[in-house]
């Protein structure tokens, strides 16, 4: 709000008279301004009441808990016109806290909806009112910013229309029949469980998606060397997405029909504008259309010069406005949104008549992708872009995996085959990239403002699911201070192996993409591995603004930062900033639990672990059924070191008891006398992840004994078969197999030097 009343300094001499005159003058000015403003700002107040409630849904074969607002999923579409004042009453009828964030909106910081940063959470059985003027237009969306609620239904369309008299109104674009679509996913798993499984590197989702990439599959695809090299470089099989979803939705439905808009039936020749928001928690979607070309007219709620493409990928939380045409009479054309991993899709049929289908995108060629990753990854975990200087999604390295561009996978391909580059007619499909977006207006920042340059390197570790900026998560980093009025320029390099949609709250930024003064305005930028992107914005609205990867599970793991304006007024909604910050940091400091136990004929073999971003507390046990088998429990408390977290020093405690069992060894490999039959020792040691993902361990016991151990678990032999082995300098060894039956159960058999051969069932959590 600007100040209508200027400060006046009164001279002490004529104070009385002057003060009277000033009083009258000031009041007159105030009165005039108030009258003036009331005519300008007396636009509509548009009020929405949102009732947030628990619900049960039956989307994919099982009855599961979800959250519905006003009885629906997705949340109701909120529509405003630029100039309105939005007033949204959120009635929290859940048993837990909630919040609503208005993605991409310019508003006062306290209306931004980030719990513990811009407001305290909306407590159960309370109502919170968000009120702010609408000072922009475009396609946006809104979602919960509390926990993982976004995954189970709290997402919805948020559309702000242009004033018809607006000079930026585009004929033939802004006057078309339009439909807002919010894309989303559904999983039958509890999102908290998904988050936990991701942190425990549980590859069950890969099993469901058929992307395990085991040695067996590698051999039949002729890629054994590729798989070996991949594990030699200490990588785990990678997919473009981490989570398995049973259903994909457009506005809550996997398949729907668009036969008419605003009462007008759609027919051949009609153009339709789709306002598409990606409300998915972790999925990118390919958008394709059976009726031909797609014309992109806006991105992240900002107009762009129309550009015609065959397909585009929409990143998590991004929005795109596209125009499609119905080419023929009496036909409804399929508009398809396919997940980046190609496992699932949602469709809407536009038009009236027989449904014209679009060819689905074929499954990825995973081993080609693995080969590409091998070439891009150095042994120390750093990425090598081989001088390509990539940016703006212009070069999609994943294209080696797309059969529709580079042809079908060929088993046992010879690298010296001169015909290995196959001509492919589809090779000239035009895919949208950021360099093709141009703003119709000049977006240059104020020239006189000072520039503050920042550099971030996105970092991440798939094996431990740690995602960060400059290897620091939110709770480990200071707030980034910026000054109101300065231009902030951020250069981001993605040094991780996954693409990330980086989102800035409260501001649009210019994405420098070669369009000069007409750089497009966005609020999220998708950065692929090894890309460098530059974005800049003018710091013009004070507050604490979140900047984070919008993949929900990465955000909750701490991939973000807080931009904080210096000398800002305290936020009236946060009475205790220190407490609020502790709660904000708690998100990425949480511990994740996993446990498993093998009930076998030769004893119980199991482990339990509590771990978070940097720490791990774990116990392993081998409990036989009688004294001659023996019992042992080893507990380690360790801290992961380094960016790749291959090194983990620990302290531990080792206890075991055995009475004259088989395979008695008097001394270990170093000739030290063995305390196998009764041991109760404190240890200090270090774990290190070696090539082929073998964990090497070196330990010293407080009685002076030393032990070295090599262990590999869960080596994927086939899709469902895993192998493990262990051997150490105490002359113990173990080898075994596990067949995965489902998420929590497997059938095992193994041989243990202490306990002999056994078979059993493993239960895991």
């Amino acid at each position, binding site marked *: 709000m600007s100040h209508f009343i200027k400060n006046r300094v009164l001279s002490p001499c004529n104070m009385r008279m002057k003060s009277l005159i000033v009083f009258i003058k000031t009041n007159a000015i105030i009165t005039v301004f108030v009258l003036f403003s009331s005519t300008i700002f007396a636009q509509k107040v548009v009020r929405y009441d949102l009732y947030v409630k628990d619900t049960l849904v039956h989307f994919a074969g099982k009855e599961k808990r979800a959250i519905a607002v006003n009885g629906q999923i997705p949340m109701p579409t909120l529509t405003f016109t630029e100039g309105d004042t939005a007033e949204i009453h959120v009635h929290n009828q859940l048993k837990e806290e909630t919040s609503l964030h208005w993605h991409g909106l310019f508003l006062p910081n306290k209306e931004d909806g980030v719990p513990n940063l811009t407001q305290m959470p909306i407590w159960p059985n309370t109502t919170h009112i968000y009120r702010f003027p609408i000072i922009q237009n475009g396609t946006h969306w809104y979602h919960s910013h509390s926990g993982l609620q976004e995954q189970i239904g709290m997402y919805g369309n948020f559309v702000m229309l242009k004033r018809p008299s607006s000079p930026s109104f585009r004929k*033939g674009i802004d006057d078309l029949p339009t439909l807002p679509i919010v894309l989303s996913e559904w999983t039958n798993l509890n999102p908290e469980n998904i988050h936990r499984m991701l942190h425990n590197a549980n590859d069950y989702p890969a099993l469901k998606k058929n992307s395990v990439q085991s040695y067996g599959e590698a051999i039949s695809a002729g890629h054994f060397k590729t798989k070996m090299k991949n594990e030699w470089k200490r990588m785990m099989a990678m997919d473009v997405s981490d989570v398995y979803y049973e259903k994909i939705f457009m506005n809550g439905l996997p398949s729907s029909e668009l036969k008419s808009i605003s009462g007008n039936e759609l027919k051949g020749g009609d153009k339709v504008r789709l306002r598409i928001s990606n409300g998915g928690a972790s999925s990118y979607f390919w958008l394709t259309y059976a009726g031909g070309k797609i014309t992109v007219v806006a991105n992240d709620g900002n107009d762009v010069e*129309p550009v015609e493409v065959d397909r585009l990928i929409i990143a998590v939380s991004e929005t795109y406005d596209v*125009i499609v045409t119905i080419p023929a009479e009496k036909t409804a054309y399929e508009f398809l949104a396919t997940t980046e991993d190609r496992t699932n899709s949602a469709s809407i049929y536009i038009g009236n008549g027989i449904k014209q*289908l679009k060819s689905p995108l074929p499954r990825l060629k995973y081993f080609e992708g693995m080969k590409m990753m091998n070439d891009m990854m150095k042994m120390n975990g750093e990425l090598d872009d081989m001088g*390509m*200087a990539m940016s703006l999604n212009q070069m999609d390295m994943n294209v080696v995996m797309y059969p529709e561009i580079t042809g079908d996978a060929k088993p046992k391909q010879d690298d010296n085959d001169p015909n290995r580059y196959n*001509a492919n007619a589809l*090779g*000239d499909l035009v895919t949208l990239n950021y360099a093709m977006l141009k703003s119709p207006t000049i977006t240059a920042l104020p020239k006189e403002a000072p520039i503050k340059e920042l550099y971030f390197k996105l970092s991440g570790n798939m094996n431990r699911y740690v995602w960060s900026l400059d290897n620091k998560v939110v709770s480990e980093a200071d707030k980034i201070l910026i000054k109101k009025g300065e231009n902030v320029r951020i250069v981001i390099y993605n040094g991780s192996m996954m693409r990330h949609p980086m989102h800035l709250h409260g501001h649009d930024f210019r994405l420098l993409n070669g369009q000069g003064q007409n750089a497009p305005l966005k609020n999220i930028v998708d950065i692929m591995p090894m890309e460098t992107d530059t974005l800049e914005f003018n710091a013009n609205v004070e507050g604490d603004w979140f900047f984070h990867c919008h993949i929900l599970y990465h955000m909750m793991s701490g991939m973000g930062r807080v931009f904080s304006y210096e000398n800002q007024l305290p936020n009236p909604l946060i009475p205790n900033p220190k407490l609020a910050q502790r709660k904000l940091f708690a998100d990425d400091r949480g511990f994740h639990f996993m446990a498993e136990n093998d009930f076998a004929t030769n004893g119980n073999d199991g482990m339990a672990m509590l771990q978070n971003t940097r720490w791990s507390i774990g116990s392993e046990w081998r409990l036989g059924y009688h004294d001659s088998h023996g019992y042992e429990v080893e507990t380690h408390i360790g801290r992961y070191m380094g960016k790749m977290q291959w090194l983990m020093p620990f302290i531990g405690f080792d206890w075991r008891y055995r009475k004259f069992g088989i395979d008695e060894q008097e001394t270990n490999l170093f000739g030290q006398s063995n305390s196998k039959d009764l041991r109760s020792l404190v240890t200090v040691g270090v774990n290190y992840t070696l090539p082929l993902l073998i964990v090497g361990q070196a330990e010293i016991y407080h009685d002076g004994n030393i032990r070295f151990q090599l262990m590999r678990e869960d080596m994927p032999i086939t899709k469902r078969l895993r192998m493990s082995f262990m051997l150490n300098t105490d002359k113990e060894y173990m080898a075994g197999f596990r067949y995965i039956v489902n998420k929590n159960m497997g059938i095992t058999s193994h041989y243990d030097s202490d306990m002999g051969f056994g078979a059993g069932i493993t239960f895991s959590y």
Partner: protein
Amino acid sequence: MAMALMLSISTCFAEIKNAKEETVHIYGNCSICKSTIESAANVKDVVQVEWNKDTKMAVLTYDEKQTNQDEILKRIGLAGYDSDKFLAPDNVYAKLETCCQYERAAKIIAKIEASKAVNLAVEEKVVAPILEIKTEGEQLQLKEVFNSYFAVKDALVKTDGTLAATKAVLLLNSINAVKMENLTKEEHSEWMKVMKDLVFDAEHISETKDAGHQRDHFTSLSKNMYSLIKVSKQETPTYYQFCPMANKGKGANWLAKEKIVKNPYYGSKMLGCGKTVETIN
């Protein structure tokens, strides 16, 4: 045969619960179509489809609690076979065996207003007014050379070695057809410098069908074309583009008439790799 069929049907049906039976029309020709349709549609214990290749009618039997007719017909459509509800994608239909390609009803194409959208590939092909007639003669000669060069480039973008070889022959012909007297002074001196190498590279490209080998020669061909086009006035802008990874990491250039980068050294494997380093007007 019919008996065996009947028996097999009855045993299959026994496994589908909540069975609903419907008869629908599905286009197709022969027994290959029948097996494609049925294997696309059938789901163990959920869907069983029996298509008759003479009547073109299919009997669908499915568990109505787990699926519906639309899901079944969509799968059949995606396998290439039209029904009354779904039309197969054209590219899937085109891949069917020739004997299977049943007759399809033509669509009634609607009249569409001219699109205001910018098609980036088309944008640059705007034809400029013809220049003075005096120079038209020379223009045409070199223009032929350049056009043939672009044809070779486009073939390499598609990684089509056979096509590139054919286009290289045309390039060779256009080079040999140039009459040096008709060139301007600058063009003439440049032509003297590069002509032999142009012939050399064009010949080698025409003599092999291996795109990799052709691309090696394309590096030097492009460099010489660049110096030639720099001194030769063209009607529309030409873009000089660069890929740092080509030529075994040393980087290589090429000329193009479209601004949007389509890499001739990598084709679809890395179509967008590269950027415009110079615009020649």
